[in-house]
């Protein structure tokens, strides 16, 4: 029983949702409004800018993402995570999986097509091409329909 389909396209910005996703009442600025889905009328989507993530530590980023996802929100990161942060995200997600409560995350990013082109200087300077739009949601609510190098199409459902 899908509630909404979300078509996330890096180039076109398509993603309009007929059910008013993004109303975001009561946002306290933390990026984690625990009451976001309580009204049951829709699925909340948090689009988090690269600037907002920039000042956070790796663990703060992971907490921001997982707290949102565990509340049933879809989290979209403008600039994604570094490989090391992705590795820790998987690890922390695994420790939080709980039968009948949380079965993990669905995550999609565009594949890194420029991995082989990265220079040593880029890597030394920490420029790890992390800038890739990333969609993360609860595994039982977010289903990837199609993914290629330029399009991620996903189905979002209510709990």
């Amino acid at each position: 029983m899908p509630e909404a389909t979300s078509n996330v396209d890096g180039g076109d910005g398509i993603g309009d949702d007929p059910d008013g996703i993004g109303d975001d009442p009561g946002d306290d600025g933390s990026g984690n409004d625990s009451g976001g889905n309580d009204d049951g009328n829709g699925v909340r989507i948090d689009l988090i800018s690269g600037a907002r993530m920039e000042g956070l530590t790796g663990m703060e980023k992971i907490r921001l993402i997982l707290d949102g996802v565990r509340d049933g929100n879809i989290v979209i990161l403008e600039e994604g995570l570094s490989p090391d942060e992705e590795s820790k995200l998987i690890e922390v997600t695994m420790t939080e999986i709980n039968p009948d409560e949380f079965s993990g995350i669905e995550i999609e990013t565009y594949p890194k097509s420029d991995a082989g082109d990265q220079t040593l200087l880029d890597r030394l300077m920490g420029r790890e091409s992390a800038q890739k739009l990333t969609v993360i949601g609860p595994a039982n609510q977010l289903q990837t329909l199609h993914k290629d190098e330029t399009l991620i199409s996903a189905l979002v459902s209510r709990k």
Partner: protein
Amino acid sequence: MGLLTNLKDSISKVSDRLFADEEPKRIGIYGPPNAGKTTLANRIARDWTGDAVGPESHVPHETRRARRKEGVEIERNGRTVTIDIVDTPGVTTKVDYKEFLDHDMEKDDAVRRSREATEGVAEAMHWLREDVDGVIYVLDSTTDPFTQVNTMLIGIIESQDLPVLILANKTDLPESNIQRVANAFPQHETIPLSALEGDNMDEVYDKIAEYFG
């Protein structure tokens, strides 16, 4: 004369060990669930040590703990490469115990298996960041390799500058598509094989020696 020769051989062996290049490299076998990682680990271990590493199964997450087989000596072209094989649980971002119920499992067993699986995946990620010197990445060549887990893991491995050998497994199945795997990760060499049937293992061992020797 014989005594002297034996003594010389013994001294030579001891000095070889003392002055060996370094400790055996720990090579992690990674990949998504059901790619054939344990089948490969068992194939390598049986070929060179006579022992197996762990049980194989079609049920996902049969391997729920990283298992290490130490001191596997692979001989190629007159030289010996010694590695420790670490067979790891299949990496995923989600584990739902209900999936195990489809494999004739009671709920309690399915919940226990899912808990163990999540611990195993967390452990595998930790190994990848801290404890492996190289990676054999195993993919089921009958399935789409273009998944998020594969993309992320290859990215994580590349970011750590670990040597990685990509294996397109299950070439014995008619749906196998080696080119699709090669296209997904063009920056790396892809070696086809059937770990189950032992097909193309010679090339696999050549590459293990080349990449990790």
